[in-house]
């Protein structure tokens, strides 16, 4: 039982990272129906900015986080303007390919800029361990990431469903022309979407950088992919879905490693994923509405 609970904690803390990245992923997808493959790389850039601010400039945690979020928000908008806006009326797959291009560009551009070397964060958030119920270990960083993930999920959900910009986002996602007729500025709305999504990615990057203490230019690929999986698992475009999907994926991975064989963790995790999708073809939270004919 104790081991199970510890594994649950491990799974949730791993999952909260997937979830954190998946939130921005799913939001951008929800609004522009674009699988922004570069999202994982914006996360990487965010981590490097955090590293730059803390290790080179010697800033404390919060200002560093803020800097990273702001710069990445701008980066997100720039990427959107240069690489996606011209393709807004093109087939979706074209934007997907440029997204892959942007992703490669960020990865290898960064590699040229900072070398492929691993970088390590300075100790900006001293680690504290807590013991629960006897032997369960949990650290303050795990708690911070979990809390931040949930808070950001709630915040995003609020923004998208309750605020004016959120309503505009959803309108734009369904019909850009009609949205314009409502007086919505489509360009600004999409820019805002990318800014928010990228800022979220940056936050994830900094937190993860501090948590695991090592960053490199390719660090975004796997988490990006897993976050995408998490977003789809929850029902892509659905914010609480992304979070649930992230947690679920993390817990599944932890349980397979802990109780099965770590060798088979990824295959088993993917098998479970496919089974979930077969049972719920639109993801856990997705409504499987038949197109009205």
């Amino acid at each position, binding site marked *: 039982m104790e*081991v199970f609970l*510890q*594994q649950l904690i*491990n*799974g949730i*803390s*791993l999952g909260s*990272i997937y979830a954190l990245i998946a939130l921005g992923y799913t939001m951008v997808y929800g609004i522009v129906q674009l699988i922004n493959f570069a999202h994982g790389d914006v996360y990487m850039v965010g981590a490097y900015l955090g590293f730059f601010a803390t290790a080179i400039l010697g800033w404390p945690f919060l200002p560093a986080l803020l800097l990273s979020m702001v710069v990445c928000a701008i980066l997100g908008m720039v990427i959107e303007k240069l690489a996606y806006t011209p393709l807004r009326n093109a087939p979706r797959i074209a934007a997907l390919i440029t997204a892959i291009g942007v992703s490669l560009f960020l990865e*290898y551009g960064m*590699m040229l800029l900072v*070398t*492929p*070397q*691993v970088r*390590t964060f300075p100790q900006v958030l001293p*680690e504290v*361990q807590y013991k629960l119920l006897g032997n369960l*270990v949990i*650290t303050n960083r795990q708690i911070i990431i979990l809390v931040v993930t949930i808070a950001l999920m709630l915040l995003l959900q609020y923004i998208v469903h309750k605020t004016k910009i959120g309503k505009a986002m959803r309108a734009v996602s369904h019909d850009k022309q009609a949205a314009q007729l409502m007086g919505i500025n489509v360009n600004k709305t999409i820019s805002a979407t990318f800014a928010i999504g990228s800022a979220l990615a940056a936050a994830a990057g900094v937190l*993860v950088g501090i948590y*695991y*203490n*090592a960053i*490199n230019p*390719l*660090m975004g*690929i*796997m*988490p990006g992919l897993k976050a995408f999986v998490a977003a789809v698992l929850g029902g892509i475009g659905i914010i609480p879905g992304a979070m649930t999907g992230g947690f679920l994926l993390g817990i599944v*991975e*932890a*349980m397979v*490693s*802990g*109780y099965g*064989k*770590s*060798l088979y963790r*990824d295959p088993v995790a993917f098998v479970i994923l496919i089974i979930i999708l077969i049972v719920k073809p639109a993801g856990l939270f997705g409504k499987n509405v038949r197109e009205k004919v």
Partner: protein
Amino acid sequence: GGGGAKEEKKAADANEIVIGGNFELSGNVATFGTAAANGAQLYFDEVNAAGGVLNKKIKFVNLDNKSDATEAANVATRLITQDKVVAILGATTSGDTLGFIQVATDNKIPVLTSSATNPDVTVDPNTKQVREYVFRACFIDPFQGTVMANFALKDLKAKTAVIYVDNNSPYSKGLAQFFKESFTKQGGKIVGEEAFVPEDQDFKATLTKIKGLNPDVVYCPGYYEQVGKIVKQAREVGITVPFLGGDGWDSPKLAEIAGAQALNNTFFSNHYSSEQDDPNVKAFVEKYKAKYGQVPDSMAALGYDAAVLIVDAIKRSGDGSPEKIKEALKATKDVQAVTGKLSFDENHNPVKGAAILEMKDGKQVYKTYVNP
């Protein structure tokens, strides 16, 4: 590729000896390839500054194999047919090296890998024949694995061990396999075998499981980036027993990632140590730092040594032809390199010992030197 004809002319330039580099400059082990290539370049520059070899300047054509075996074959073909190289250095991993040695052998071009430690690289596992054209500058996995198993049993008095390997790395799996063989043969018991993949960030689930297995030591032959995170997280979940590893641990980054505290009570085998009190090592570290601004890790040292070995062979070959270079390589004896005085055995492996280092408060402390 375009511009082939022009390049062929250039390659045939009588005043140059062209040596190919088939290294990982991008992809997931780009750090190794870059370090090794840097090491090699450093030595070639030295040689050229001193007038070259056989009165010719060395031209080092270094191409990127993207950390992919197929690309490595592609690169080798290009080096051989386009750039007319007389020998190829690389790659840094056994997997990538295996991808192209057949191409080189077919074309009778010698290959000298800096750090592919898997035995199959120089000996064909199917025929048990030595691969005529393939050599390496590093010791091999069985040696390293065995050394560590002995160390665990004898020096650490361990009876049980858990093996935790990088599932995507033949290197890591090779070391683990030989550790296991040696450890169990001598009465030790492997109580668990776990795996991770290099992209992993979080190892806590598996580590929690390992903690439950309660081993005397954990053998974790991987590369420093993951090992750093693993050791750090292992201490967080409360594993206090020693962690053991191989040359993949060697990097100043290891302590940065894991934290000096967490790394205490860990040991690894290595080709050399940048902290080693040896004039050759000291000189190399200085030169490397001056040129690249970093402390060289063992990949860099081995890249440098590969260059040393190949230049030595070219010198002795007389005419610098691939065939003669191969013969000269075979006869390599007592060449002074950074990682020791090197001679090749009948399997084209250098005869050299391994250093066992202990991490103490973030510093590599020289523990013992084990001769083969």
